[in-house]
């Protein structure tokens, strides 16, 4: 008898070309049974295409996929599910208006009489219970999913994969919207599942997470396979070199001396009505203030309140020393406030519109002559910002849908520069952007601050808030528990405040 393959999954010589781009070039990906396998690569390296191939969302041009040593063809998502491959996307695809148990069993409901499709309600709850237990989640399974936290929803997504008796579970950046305690909980479950023999493919941007949970690592760069390593036999620096092709750029502390300008923004006992209560602080022109805290600590709510996206329940906001009554984003923008939202695709960009429109929306009057928008002016303005910020696009009429994350973020920044915003609010502006693009973004923002723009940035990355801001406001459960100069701050000091 032949030796069984040492691998549960083998993807060999996978090549996928799109018009003008090679997304995967002869990529090898081997996964052992019962391991947590980290898939690493900068944005655009081909991770998501590889996963799409595995899940049957796209078909490769060349290459073979073996499962337990047997060749399989996956041309449709249903094939992947049948073969026991489950994908948990970054943005979860649960049905928010259905209950926990309905979500878990969706599409695989136990039936009483098969031909009638009559659901066996009694069995539903017990089956849902079982899979929730397997991820140590104790929630009321009659509750609607939209009422749960992101972390709990993620656990439910994993529970679904387990309910379907998946052989391979792919977690696509599962930690990106979780707080550190939630991440710890997720890792605990991942380790537990590994002990039970479950195979997990783990996609992330955070190297510390890779070292914490993974057994082996596969690295891609520019669509090419860079190697597969045991996690305990490779160093962080080696990984960074393989991922970027260059040495890790050490992010230095923001040591620029702050020439404190006039006060740009002051919040006086602001209450957002949801989480944040009694928030008071001020930001000066040219200052970069980092808002640090766990996800759900009320930082985003504060930004949205300043921007007029949500109504204030109580308190006052002062702009440049004057009391401001901001009732809508229109009011805020007129007073010189810009807002880079966390969710680029749903709140920042209009994906079905091109660069011209996304950069000029709200300031079309700049391009108008004789009451009509003049394409020539529109182009001139757009070209100016494209060149100033280094936005890479095929042409100005390209839909922003087709830009990379870093370039999308630059388009949004260009929009606010075009508005000549004096106060810029940013909510996790570097989320999902690769290392190089991040560095570029920091440089742009620091230039803006030097020109006197006041910047308020929410971030959950400790290294980012330390290296990038002049001052850090630490949030915990809806209030500010610390207001410290970045020079005096240490990782431990800030973290301990949030806990």
């Amino acid at each position, binding site marked *: 008898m032949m030796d069984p393959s040492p691998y549960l999954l083998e993807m060999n010589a996978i090549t996928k070309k799109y018009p003008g781009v090679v997304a995967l070039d002869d990529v090898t990906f081997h996964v052992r049974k019962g391991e947590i396998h980290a898939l690493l690569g900068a944005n655009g390296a081909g991770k998501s295409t590889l996963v799409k191939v595995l899940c049957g969302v796209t078909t490769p041009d060349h290459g073979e996929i073996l499962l337990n040593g047997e060749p399989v063809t996956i041309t449709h998502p249903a094939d992947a599910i049948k073969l026991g491959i489950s994908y948990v996307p970054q943005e979860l695809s649960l049905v928010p208006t259905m209950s926990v148990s309905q979500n878990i069993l969706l599409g695989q409901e136990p039936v009483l009489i098969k031909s009638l499709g009559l659901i066996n309600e009694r069995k539903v709850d017990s089956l849902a219970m079982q899979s929730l237990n397997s991820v140590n989640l104790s929630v009321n399974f009659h509750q609607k999913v939209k009422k749960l936290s992101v972390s709990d929803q993620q656990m439910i997504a994993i529970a679904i994969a387990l309910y379907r008796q998946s052989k391979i579970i792919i977690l696509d950046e599962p930690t990106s919207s979780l707080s550190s305690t939630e991440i710890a909980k997720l890792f605990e479950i991942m380790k537990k599942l590994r002990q039970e023999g479950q195979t997990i493919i783990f996609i992330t941007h955070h190297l510390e997470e890779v070292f914490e949970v993974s057994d082996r690592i596969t690295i891609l760069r520019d669509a090419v396979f860079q190697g597969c390593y045991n996690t305990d036999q490779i160093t962080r620096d080696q990984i960074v070199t393989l991922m970027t092709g260059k040495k890790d750029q050490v992010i230095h502390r923001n040591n620029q001396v702050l020439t404190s300008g006039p006060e740009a923004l002051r919040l006086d006992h602001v209450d957002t009505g949801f989480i944040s209560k009694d928030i008071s602080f001020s930001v000066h022109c040219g200052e970069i203030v980092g808002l640090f805290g766990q996800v759900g600590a009320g930082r985003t709510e504060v930004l949205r309140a300043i921007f007029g*996206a949500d109504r204030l329940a109580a308190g006052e906001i002062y702009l440049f020393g004057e009391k401001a009554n901001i009732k809508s984003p229109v009011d805020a*923008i007129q007073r010189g406030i810009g807002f880079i939202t966390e969710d680029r695709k749903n709140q920042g*960009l209009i994906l*079905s*519109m091109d660069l011209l*429109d996304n950069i000029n929306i709200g300031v079309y009057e700049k391009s108008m002559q004789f009451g009509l928008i003049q394409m020539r002016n529109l182009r001139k303005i757009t070209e100016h910002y494209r060149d100033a910020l280094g936005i890479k696009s095929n042409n100005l009429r390209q839909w922003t849908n087709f830009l990379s994350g870093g370039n999308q973020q630059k388009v949004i920044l260009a929009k606010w520069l075009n*508005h000549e915003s004096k106060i810029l609010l940013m909510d996790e502006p570097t989320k999902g952007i690769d290392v190089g693009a991040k560095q570029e973004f920091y440089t742009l923002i620091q230039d803006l601050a030097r020109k006197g723009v006041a910047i308020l940035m929410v971030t959950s990355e400790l290294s980012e808030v330390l290296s990038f801001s002049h001052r850090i406001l630490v949030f915990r459960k809806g209030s500010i528990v610390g207001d410290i100069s970045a020079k005096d701050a240490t990782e431990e000091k800030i973290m301990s405040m949030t806990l």
Partner: protein
Amino acid sequence: MNSTFSKLVLNKIKDRQLPAESGIFLALILLALSFTILSPYFFTSANFSNILIQSAITIVVASGATLVIASGGIDLSVGSILCLSGIFMAMGIKADIPAWLSILLGLGGGTLMGVINGFMIGVVKITPLIATLASLSVYRAIAYIITDARPIYGFPMSLRIFGTGYIGPFPYAFLLALLVAFVLMLIIHRTRVGRYTLAIGGNEEAARLSGVSLWKTKIGIYALAGLCYSVAALILTARLNAAEALAGSGMEMEAIAAAVIGGASLAGGIASIPGTIIGAILMATLKNGLTLLSVQPYFQQLTIGIVIVAAVFIDKIRKR
């Protein structure tokens, strides 16, 4: 050979070497060719101007509907606004108000009805489907109430010219329709309200957070649409030399169909006025040709339904 040619065109559209409307334009040409072969009466100038007159009203209402659809909304009150603003014009004339002022009264009335729609949708925040379903019923009811369900007929030439006049071989009505469509195109691409319309249709929340005033824009959209429908009312009233509470019923379907055949996405954010014009002419040609071939009206409706499905299906393939 035919299928390889259409594949070629499809690929050219995909690569953006040809505008997105080329597919539907090709379909229109093919349709005209087949009718020319099948009926000796089709390819005549008299018949062509018939088709243009028939398509004029659809072009005008569908241009308005295209704007609404571009914003991600829908307007079911097309026919009712058309009808009621036509009645305003007719009543004006019967009350001895000069024709031009009566026409303005009708156009103003249509715009106002649109503003009310926009208010319900943008300010009260009722979903467009429900809001315009309600106004469809209300405006139509008002039409019946104020006319007592009796037609008003017999108008001076200064009004009838919009339905019967010609400039060279072209009917007045068709030229007016093209003018309206052109202005709408200008509005969509070259004015703030138009760009905001596409932005709202593409991503309402992003538009709001970019400083677009949703309620103002929505009132503007439905007001412009209402204005378009009342221009159609002018053409219809002039052609029939009558206004009645029955007029224009079912027009909303024709308007939506023309826009969708022309490439507008009901999800919003994407719309093309040239596409809509071609869509309207295509439907008029289809009806005209089938009539010449003595096909029963019921079968005509059936064919149009199939054309809508086919157009959307081809559009889906194109986007793959």
